Every structure is written in structure tokens, then in C-alpha cells.
């Protein structure tokens, strides 16, 4: 009566997240970090600034990948939490203190708070409805940023944010700002990576693969989804706080649909579920937007659109699908 059931596996065995042999992965990560840390010593200021944006965006993309790739929750509104963190960190820097960990922590807390307030609506839905709800939430948060002028500065944005201070000294030049951002973002990415590799992370992947089955195994999946939604919001908020350390300005555009799309593009270019891939994707997206955009007559969105189409067809598993590390079988 029933045809032999087939488990749907888009992309076959490669569907599994790439597993890096512990030692080698760590070695590569350390090498990349050393190069990144040394970068300001030989890069010109503008290049360092661009690199700073890449690092900020990498943390943001990784936080989104935790939802999209690891848990299978494709959010179109994640920029809202990025922006919430940025506004909160900016407001605190202006009105309270810009002393180092404070704006970052405030950003992370507010990102989490915004995600906690809105997330419960989304975790019960799935598929296209999740897409639509997150889109609506993102638009609503942008609307709040646009109209709550007394706090957010409205359409003009929140400007005049003082430079972040570390141990009482303002981070006045691009190099020091970069190092601060690099350290904080590395910490953030590392925490997300650890979470994804933990038993909790395994449960998230289980939810992505087969949510009903997870419920049958006794996992309260809605709770798990809510938890990861808040965690991802918090990481995005921290990324937002780092954004203002570099940009010293937040505007409603930072939590708009385009920002969310850029982040999604970074995630899928990198291969959903591959956190290091998301970092790579973030680098590509920012280079196209900030370094190449001006030489494309402002048609960066065209490139972005084409990239979406191509990536969906050609790299169903993203850049991570082009495997650098052999999977043990």
C-alpha cells in the first residue's frame, strides 16, 4: 500500500554540516585570526574600515545562520534585532557611558529583548508563514525606529554617538576600533559556534531536519525555537552594538529589509548551516556593497539580485558545499 518511504535529502549526503577535524579546524581558525589581527598594521585606513564592517557583518550573518541554517527558521526580519542592539548601544553611549563592554552588553541585551518580545509570535508558525511574519516584524521594528523620534532620532537616525572607550581611552582611529570590534565579534562568533556544537545545537539541527519527530522524542520544540530565536537576536544585537562602534550612527535603514536581505545572502552564499561559510559570505557581500558598489553606478542591488538567483541554482549548499574539508564517512 505505501510506497517505500524516501527521506528527502536535498543535496544528498552533503546535507550534513561540514565537520572539521578538531585540530585542523582550530589551526585554520587561529591562522585566520592572526592574519586578521595583523591587518591594520599594513592596511590603509579605508581598507581597515571596510574590514571592520566585514567583521561586524560576519557576526550578524552568523547569528542569522544560527536560525536559518542550524535550526531551519528562515527569518526575513533579523535586521530588526541588529538594529535594536545598535540603537540601544548608541543611546547608552550618548546618554550614559561609552566605556567598552557597556554598549556591547546593552546591545546584546536589547537584541535579546526585542527578539523575546516578538519571537513568541513566530515560533508557532512555519514555512512561508514564518517568512511572512518575520518580514512583518522587521518592517514594524523599522517603523518604530522611524517614528519614535525622541529616542531614535527618527529618519535622521541616531547620530553623534561618541567613540567607544576602552579603559578610559576613546578608540579614535580605525585600527584600534577594528581591534575592539574584532575581539568582540570573535568572542560572539565563538559563542555561537560552541552553542551550535553543543547538545542543544544538536537538538536544533534535529528540529531543522524533522520537527514533528523531535516532539515525538520529547523535545518541546517551540521552546527550543524560542530560545534560539532570542539567542540569535542577542548575537545580532551585539553585532549592532559593534556597528555603532565603527559607524557611530544608526538609521532606520540599518534595520530595513535590504539589510536583512544582505545578511540572508551572506548566509546562503556561505551555505546555510555552515557558520564559517556565513563569515565568508559576509565578506563577499560587504566587499560588493561598500568597496565595489560605488564603481557599479549604484547598481549593487542588481548584483545582489543576480547573486541570489545564481546561488540558489548553482550552490544549493552554498560555498560550504564546495568543501574544503573532507568529511569522514
Amino acid at each position: 500500500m505505501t510506497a517505500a518511504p524516501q527521506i528527502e535529502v536535498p543535496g544528498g549526503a552533503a546535507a550534513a554540516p561540514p565537520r572539521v577535524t578538531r585540530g585542523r579546524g582550530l589551526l585554520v581558525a587561529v591562522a585566520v585570526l592572526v592574519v586578521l589581527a595583523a591587518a591594520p598594521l599594513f592596511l590603509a585606513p579605508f581598507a581597515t574600515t571596510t574590514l571592520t564592517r566585514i567583521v561586524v557583518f560576519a557576526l550578524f550573518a552568523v547569528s542569522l545562520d544560527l536560525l536559518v541554517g542550524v535550526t531551519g527558521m528562515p527569518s526575513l526580519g533579523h535586521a530588526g534585532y541588529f538594529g535594536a542592539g545598535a540603537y540601544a548601544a548608541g543611546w547608552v553611549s550618548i546618554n550614559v557611558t561609552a566605556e567598552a563592554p557597556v554598549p556591547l552588553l546593552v546591545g546584546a541585551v536589547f537584541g535579546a529583548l526585542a527578539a523575546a518580545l516578538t519571537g513568541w509570535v513566530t515560533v508557532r508558525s512555519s514555512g512561508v508563514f514564518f517568512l511572512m511574519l518575520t518580514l512583518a516584524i522587521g518592517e514594524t521594528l523599522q517603523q518604530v525606529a522611524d517614528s519614535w523620534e525622541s529616542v531614535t532620532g527618527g529618519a535622521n537616525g541616531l547620530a553623534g554617538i561618541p567613540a567607544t572607550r576602552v579603559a578610559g581611552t576613546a578608540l579614535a582611529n580605525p585600527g584600534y576600533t577594528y581591534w575592539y570590534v574584532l575581539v568582540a565579534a570573535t568572542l560572539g562568533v565563538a559563542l555561537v559556534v560552541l552553542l551550535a556544537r553543543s547538545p542543544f545545537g544538536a537538538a536544533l539541527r534535529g528540529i531543522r531536519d524533522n520537527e514533528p519527530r523531535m516532539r515525538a522524542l520529547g523535545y518541546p520544540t517551540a521552546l527550543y525555537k524560542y530560545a534560539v530565536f532570542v539567542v540569535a537576536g542577542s548575537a545580532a544585537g551585539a553585532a549592532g552594538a559593534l556597528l555603532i562602534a565603527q559607524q557611530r550612527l544608526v538609521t532606520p535603514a540599518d534595520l530595513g529589509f535590504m539589510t536583512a536581505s544582505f545578511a540572508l545572502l551572506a548566509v546562503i552564499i556561505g551555505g546555510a548551516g555552515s557558520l564559517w561559510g556565513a563569515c565568508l559570505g559576509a565578506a563577499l557581500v560587504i566587499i560588493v556593497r561598500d568597496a565595489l558598489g560605488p564603481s557599479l553606478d549604484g547598481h549593487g542591488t542588481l548584483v545582489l539580485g543576480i547573486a541570489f538567483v545564481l546561488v540558489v541554482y548553482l550552490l544549493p549548499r552554498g560555498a560550504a558545499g564546495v568543501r574544503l574539508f573532507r568529511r569522514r564517512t
Partner: protein
Amino acid sequence: MSELSRRRMLGLIGAAATVPALAACGSSLGGGSTAPTGAGGARAIKVGLVVPKSGVYAALGTDMQAGWELWLAQHGGKFGDVTVETVVADEGETPQTGQPAVQKVLQSDGVDVVVGIVNSSTALGVANLFTESKKLLIVTNAGAADVTGKARTPYMWRTSFANAQVSAAMGQHLAASGFKDGVFAIAPDYAAGSEVIAGFTKAFEAGGGKVVGTVKPAFGKTSDYQPFLTQIQQSGAKATFCFFSGAEAITFVKQYAQFGLAPAIPLYGSGFLTEGSVLKQQGAAAMGVQTTLHYSDQLDNPANKTFVEAYAKANNGASPSVFSMQTYDAANVLNRALQTSGGVDGDALSKALGGIGTVDDSPRGPWTFDGQNPRQNMYLRTVQDKGGTLVNAIVQDLGPQSQPA
């Protein structure tokens, strides 16, 4: 599409090859500023012209660049004996693109002065870059009060206007011309809209006028103004004051006519309602709409006549807009400042700008810096058909106006 995308992709690859060039040399740990091109007795000055080349403000960017280039062409590409090198960068639509553009010209191209900036949030967002690098920014459009107000820095000057400055002139005018007992004010719900309404209301009420209703439609999300138009009709207003620009200016003016308000309740506005390319799109619906602004290409003074003529010649017969004029004047004031500054660093130029006195050869008429914003004459203009083209004809000179406190 395939051809186009291929070209784009090739362009992308070509551009990718230039990325390493960003890394050119040096480190990022200096004081944040590169060595000035010529301290004292400058022989050359490098100017970054940051204007929108893409996005909804692209047309403004084109006008601004044309204004800048016209002044230089008229003066042999020099400020006195100082050769001007211009680097153009795309401001785009939002600070997300504008801020990197400013950063690029400052940090990568090493310019001495930056000119341009349409978007107020971009202007406010880059202010600190200039304070820290001690370089000069001349804002040639962005009208937020804070640019020369709350966010004031000695390094940020403005040759354009403040939002409330333009609408305050209309407030005074309407209060003095028989509309005291009822004007309805409408502007989009965003920072500039609020500033315009506040400026108008304050001046209008100071003149004894009464605002019978104020409404702020959602900015950028309103395409149908019928609900507001009905509200205006029911308010019993004698006139409407509005501020819209771009697509919203077109839609609002057309619908104002379509719903039959135009004959009964005359429409007044801030000058941007009918400025530039929107006027042609508004068509007949704009006839008779009156606005205040610090410029119109119809101004009858010798400087403007020369300006309009030269501009048309250089730009295939196009008329200059207020945006062209504001950037043209930026070159003018920079030229004047360089005569006395003795250097191209922000401190020297800022000091010199404070002392240039009256700019007496501007197409907008004579004006001076009051604070770091122009004190300039406001003109009441009305839309008329002049030989088949709609123009903002000058009705009245409303006298000089500063940025309201």
C-alpha cells in the same frame, strides 16, 4: 538581461581586481588623518564631491555635480591660483552608502575638503569624521536643523538651507495675507517633515495665525492621500500648507487637484514641492501652487541670468535647480575662504569661512553666513506656464531669513 548581467559581472570582476589596491600602503594606526596636500600657501586642493549617483536622489546628484563643475569651468578649474582636483563619490540613498563614500574620499583619496551630501542623516552621521580628522565639510543640501544646530561642529558648514527656515517664511507670509483663521498643515511623518511643520506653525502662529489641523502621513509608505484630503476638506481650512518631495510631491499635488480641493482651498508649500523634475510630472495639477524657497531659476538678477545661461549651455539646455545653485555657491565660498585661509586644513578654512562676509555674486542674491547656515532672502513663487514649460515664477521677495532658533 543576459547581456546586461554579463557586462555587470565583468565589471564586478574588474572591480574585484582593484580591491587589493585599497590596501595600497601604510597602516591604520596613525592619528586618523593623512598629511595635508599643501599646508600654508597651498598650490593644490583635493575636493571630495559626495553626491547621490544612484537611488531616489540621483537626479539631485546630477544637478549638484553640474553646479560644481560649472563654477570650476568658469574659473579655469582653480580657486585663485590653487588647482582644484575633484574626486566624485556616490552618496547613494542612505547613510549605509553615504558614510562609506565619505570615508573613502577622506581616508582613501585623502581629500582636503568634502562638498555635497543630500541626506540629512548622512550629514549628521559623518559629522564626527570631520571633527576628528579636522577637515572641512560643506553641506550643499541636507536641511536638518541639527546640521548647523545641535550637532554643530566648526568643520561643518552649509550653503543650502535649514528645513524650518524655508517654511517659516511661508508661515509669516500666510499670516500676513488673509489666511489667519485657518490653515491645515500636512507633511510626511519623518524628521524633515516635522521640522518643516514646526517651523511653519511657529512663524504662522507668531503672526497671529491659527492652524486648524496637522497631519503627518507615513513617510514613504503613503501613495493615496484621499483620507487626508477628506480631512482637510472637513477641517474648514482656508488654505493648505504642505511639504513633500519626490514621488510624494507628485502624488499629493495631483490628488489634491483630482479630489477637487485645488480651487476652493489654495495649496501652499515649501519650495521642494515643485522643484526640479517633479514639476513636469505634476503637470497641470501644479498650476497656481505657491511655494517659498531661497531660489528659482526665474530670479531676475544679473548673477542668476549669467548662471542660468551658462548652465544651460553646459548641460544641453537644462535649467539649473536649487540643488545646482547650492553646490555652485559652495565652490564660490570655498574660493573666497581660500583667499585668506593660508591653508586647506579644517581649522584654517573654517576660520576663513566665518570672515567672508556677504556673498554678493550668488545667483540667489546676496547672502551671508549666520552661524554656519546662510542668512538669505526667501522668495514666494507660483507655478506658471511659460511657453509650454512649467516654471516657478517669482511673486514676491519675502526678505532675508535666518535659520530659526
